[in-house]
């Protein structure tokens, strides 16, 4: 370096000398020209590098590729890409009106779905929609102009056959099928161009009562399900068609994964009207996620959405609390149908008040779902819930954290004491959680439940997830077989968790299900859960209906009850039951209650409630090793008797007169559904990967630099020779 500097100094006087001497000389001009060229080259290169990305972004789309802009579409119409051309195409347009009538513990709902075909072709519309997981769908009507066609209940395959025959004959037809206890599909054949068809679906659900509040939920969005598993053998998938029919765990995946609406405009507007007749004075009524208006008429409340309609992107939940002195301790409803007595019993065991025994020493395992579907608000809620849970641990408790997405990871290799240091380590671990990847729940559940529970700790597993999986049955099996003395509590996160999965998982896990929809709810809901976790439960619950009585009571095995939870029974008997005695024990202290069932006026829907309870108990019995064929026969039997849609029965309605002329072709359209609120579509669907590399950029930069270097070398060399010549010229005369 030093010698270089010396040379530079040496050079300067000589050049100045040369320039002074031959001022108007060509070579001086050349030097300046060279400098100018170099300067320009460098500036251009710098500019080029700086502006590179901007230039590319502004680059217009080549004309030879047709691009369809979604901006050109007139408002209100729903569009989807046509499979057989590159153009977008209008598809049926859906509007939903929901009317709910609450009476006692029973809710009867009417859903009116309006399908409008805005295209120029005859279409078949397929709409996948969620309902509460204990919904009993018992009526469907197809409204064509003035005519009303009542749907009839049939065995699933038979219903499908009836529908397909009608579809081929050009008749209007509707088919309502159950895909999961909380996911249904409605298929409507032969909607004429420009025509509007209405389908009315009626279902019944039971109110949820916990910790002194009643809640009514209407799900409106389906979180896209993660479909795990490897391909199944070809021979299995041949009989059916559909994507992911080819994975072992989820053989019907194609049916529960509706097309997701990816545009920014929300579709499928829903309006909700509720007539609430609680049966006791209310302290308050609140809607958790929507603005409502309420009006008191006589003893009932009329409730509506303030905005009139809402896009179906998040669940609706209405909660009401009785006035303090009207808190229900028990409720009994009955109904007499075809000589059979149906009864519904709800009983809240007494509060243990201030439990004074030894505080429970707990060994808590937290499982947190960090899969892609949790991305967005959900993971933040999960983190907030976890942090809060850690603060509730006492020094004598033990804990561990397991996270899972495509892979499973745990904080400690085994449960550690909840010491100050360990909690701090755990908090740092939680803060670093981020959501990405698949939802492989099974390994995490196995890990959490694979524990010897011979020590003196109460083993609790707290499972935080949005439950967006399709292999529910496999997971229930794991929980059922591995539970041992542990208790599994599920915490549902996100605006549309798969509550069927979580409620059932908690049921098999003999724990409870808590649903948290917003970060601001974490505190309240988690506190309620903690009071359950920290207080002893009511166990060994038995029912005694008297010696000379017979009755079919569901559920047959009564689950343990946590703090604030009611016991709910569905009873069917030939002779009405007079008395019922319920016994149990809480923290080894016995408890019993005797109820008189006689004194009640009849109410509606109790038979349907009983049938729905029986069906869900039958489905659960498969996990206890019941014969599948027998269960299927039993379900069909109950469902046909009570006119219910189930796993094995569907509602079908067919118009008598054909409406589509033979020569017109029928287009098939799936109605896209909205992604649940707050969820990022790209993470959920694992949408389109980044497919550009920096290879080109690197190579271009490299070549530019090399060319520049080469140009400089050449330029400098030529000036060097010239100068050498000059020097020669100069030398000669002297």
């Amino acid at each position: 370096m030093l010698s270089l500097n010396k040379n530079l100094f040496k050079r300067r006087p000589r050049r100045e000398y040369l320039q002074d001497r031959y001022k108007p000389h060509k070579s001086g001009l050349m030097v300046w020209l060279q400098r100018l060229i170099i300067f320009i080259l460098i500036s251009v290169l710098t500019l080029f590098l700086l502006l590179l990305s901007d230039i590319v972004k502004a680059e217009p789309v080549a004309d030879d590729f047709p691009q369809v802009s979604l901006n050109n579409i007139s408002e209100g119409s729903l569009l989807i890409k046509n499979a057989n051309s590159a153009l977008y195409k209008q598809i049926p347009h859906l509007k939903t009106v929901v009317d709910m009538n609450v009476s006692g513990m029973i809710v009867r709902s009417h859903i009116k779905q309006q399908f409008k075909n805005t295209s120029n072709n005859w279409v078949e519309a397929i709409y996948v929609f969620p309902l509460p997981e204990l919904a009993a769908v018992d009526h469907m009507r197809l409204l064509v102009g003035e005519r009303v066609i009542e749907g009839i209940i049939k065995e699933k395959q038979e219903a499908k056959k009836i529908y397909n025959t009608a579809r081929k004959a050009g008749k209007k037809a509707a088919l309502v099928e159950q895909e999961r206890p909380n996911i249904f599909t409605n298929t409507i054949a032969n909607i004429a161009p420009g025509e509007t068809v209405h389908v009315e679906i009626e279902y019944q659900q039971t109110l949820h009562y916990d910790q002194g509040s009643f809640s009514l939920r209407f799900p409106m969005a389906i979180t896209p399900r993660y479909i795990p598993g490897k391909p199944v053998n070809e021979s299995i998938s041949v009989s059916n068609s559909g994507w992911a029919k080819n994975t072992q765990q989820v053989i019907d995946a194609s049916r529960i994964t509706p097309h997701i609406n990816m545009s920014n405009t929300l579709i499928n507007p829903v309006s909700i009207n509720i007539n609430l007749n609680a049966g006791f004075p209310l302290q308050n009524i609140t809607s958790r996620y929507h603005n409502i208006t309420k009006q008191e008429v006589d003893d009932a409340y009329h409730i509506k959405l303030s905005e009139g309609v809402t896009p179906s992107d998040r669940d609706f939940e209405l909660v009401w609390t009785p006035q303090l002195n009207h808190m229900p301790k028990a409720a009994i409803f009955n109904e007499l149908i075809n000589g059979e007595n149906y009864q519904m019993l709800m009983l809240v065991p007494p509060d243990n008040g201030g439990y004074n025994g030894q505080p429970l020493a707990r060994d808590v395992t937290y499982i947190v779902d960090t899969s892609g579907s949790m991305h967005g608000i959900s993971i933040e809620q999960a983190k907030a819930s976890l942090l809060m849970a850690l603060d509730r641990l006492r020094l004598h408790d033990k804990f561990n954290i397991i996270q899972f997405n495509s892979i499973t990871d745990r904080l400690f290799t085994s449960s550690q004491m909840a010491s100050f240091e360990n909690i701090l380590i755990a908090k740092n671990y939680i803060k670093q959680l981020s959501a990405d990847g698949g939802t492989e729940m099974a390994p995490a559940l196995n890990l959490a439940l694979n524990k010897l529970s011979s020590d003196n700790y109460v083993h609790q597993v707290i499972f935080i997830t949005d439950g967006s999986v399709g292999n529910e049955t496999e997971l229930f099996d794991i929980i059922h077989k591995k539970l041992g003395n542990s208790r599994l509590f599920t915490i549902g996160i996100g605006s549309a968790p798969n509550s069927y999965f979580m409620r059932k998982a908690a049921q098999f896990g003999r724990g409870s299900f808590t649903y948290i929809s917003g970060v601001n709810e974490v505190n309240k809901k988690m506190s309620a859960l903690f009071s359950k976790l920290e207080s002893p439960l009511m166990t060994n619950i038995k029912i005694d209906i008297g010696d000379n009585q017979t009755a079919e009571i569901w559920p047959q095995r009564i689950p343990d009850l946590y703090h604030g939870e009611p016991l709910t029974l569905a009873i069917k008997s030939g002779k009405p039951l007079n008395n019922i005695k319920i016994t149990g024990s809480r923290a080894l202290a016995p408890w019993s209650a005797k109820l008189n069932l006689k004194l009640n006026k009849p109410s509606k829907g109790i038979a349907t409630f009983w049938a729905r309870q029986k069906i869900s108990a039958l489905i659960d019995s498969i996990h206890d090793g019941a014969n599948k064929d027998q269960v299927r026969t039993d379900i069909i039997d109950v469902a046909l008797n009570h006119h219910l849609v189930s796993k094995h029965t569907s509602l079908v309605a067919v118009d008598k007169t054909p409406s589509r002329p033979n020569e017109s072709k029928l287009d098939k359209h799936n109605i896209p559904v909205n992604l649940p609120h707050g969820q990022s579509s790209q993470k959920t669907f694992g949408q389109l990967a980044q497919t550009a590399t920096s290879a080109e950029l690197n190579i271009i930069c490299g070549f530019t630099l090399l060319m520049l270097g080469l140009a400089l070398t050449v330029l400098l060399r030529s000036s060097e020779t010239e100068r050498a010549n000059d020097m020669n010229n100069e030398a000669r005369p002297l």
Partner: protein
Amino acid sequence: MIIKYKKPYIIVFLFIPGCWFIGQGSYIHAKAIVAQNLLEQAWSNVKQGKSQSKPWPWADTWPVARLKVPKFDIDLIVLAGDSGRTLAFGPGHNFASAIPGKNGNSLISAHRDTHFNFLKKLNPGDSIFIETAQEENKLFKVLSTQIVDMDEARFINDQSSAYVHLVTCYPFDSISTGGSQRYIVTAISQTDYIDPSNKHNF
């Protein structure tokens, strides 16, 4: 004579970074080519019934299908997953989408400047073959090519036929990375393909 002392500067500031940049760029291409050859062995394992056969011990992916376009002499092994790490080695199959060759929408993505550069040459009606562990060459026909914004991409949920969507970044000759436009070639199983020229005879 004197001016040659400038050359070290040129070498230091231009030639060395230039070579480094070219090296980086070539490395991406080299990885793309070499990996495909290494995947051959893993693919033959898959064909022999060993599913999820990893091409090298530390790989987080495995071959799921083979994509062939005879017209352009393309023969690529498709890997499981479409993370950036996977796409460096070959086209990646989106986990959430249908398995290639099966009914529904199957998404296969690859880099526009390596494996999927040929997409720009595909036209409706062209033939694509998909080979899977169970199935030999299944013929697909290109239905459409389109350019969409990543957030506006939609796929028709038709479960009665098999679709393969080949996805890459757009524009092809752009040198910036991370753009939001995607070029999507949609192909349908030949058995469900209706030649557009015969459309009206349906």
